[in-house]
């Protein structure tokens, strides 16, 4: 059973647009929700994260929106740049286990 569901599998946006990546979960004991990005051939790196006490977290062009009632969270990338092209993974943590979504391959066209 997949603990964290992520969509879309791939997304293409034009430079300057806002990219929206979505995730959902079932386990209400998850207490931490990070987003990672991964460039080809590299390790994942943390972008931004949120705890369920908040419904929004911003860091520059990156914003997480969190809906605890619906068990959904999303990453919005404003003013997308070609350098943002990468695979993005959402995740959810339960104690010492971090469950990752299936990933979204984002392409930003100039």
């Amino acid at each position, binding site marked *: 059973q997949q603990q964290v569901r992520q969509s879309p599998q791939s997304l293409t946006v034009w430079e300057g647009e806002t990219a929206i990546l979505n995730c959902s979960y079932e386990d209400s004991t998850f207490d*931490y929700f*990070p987003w990672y990005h991964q460039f080809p051939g*590299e*390790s*994942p*790196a*943390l972008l931004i*994260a949120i705890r369920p006490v908040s419904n929004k977290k911003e860091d520059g062009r990156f914003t997480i929106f969190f809906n605890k009632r619906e068990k959904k969270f999303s990453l919005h990338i404003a003013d997308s740049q070609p350098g943002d092209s990468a695979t993005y*993974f959402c995740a959810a943590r339960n104690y*010492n*286990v*971090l*469950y*990752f*979504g*299936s*990933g979204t391959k984002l392409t930003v066209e100039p």
Partner: protein
Amino acid sequence: AQTIHQWPVAEIKAVGSPLSLGCTIKGKSSPNLYWYWQATGGTLQQLFYSITVGQVESVVQLNLSASRPKDDQFILSTEKLLLSHSGFYLCAWIDNSQNTLYFGAGTRLSVL
């Protein structure tokens, strides 16, 4: 500053052969350490975690084992590789003050 080093960088191994991958973290006392596996083009799956020397918890069963022989060292191994073991193996540690998981550079494993 903390650094995490994984070895080897890459391995090509035969089915049925043994494997040992290592991870060392410097600059952090008693870190929580983790092993993740990523199939080519796939997501990350947590394999093991360890919060102290000598203690390792398994998250998924993939015919792999892990050990924590020293405070700063985490080892992933198996006596008999399968084709399905191919992929990208990542060691990670968590900075509890920031709640952030940091990954090492990884080991690429090809099982032929």
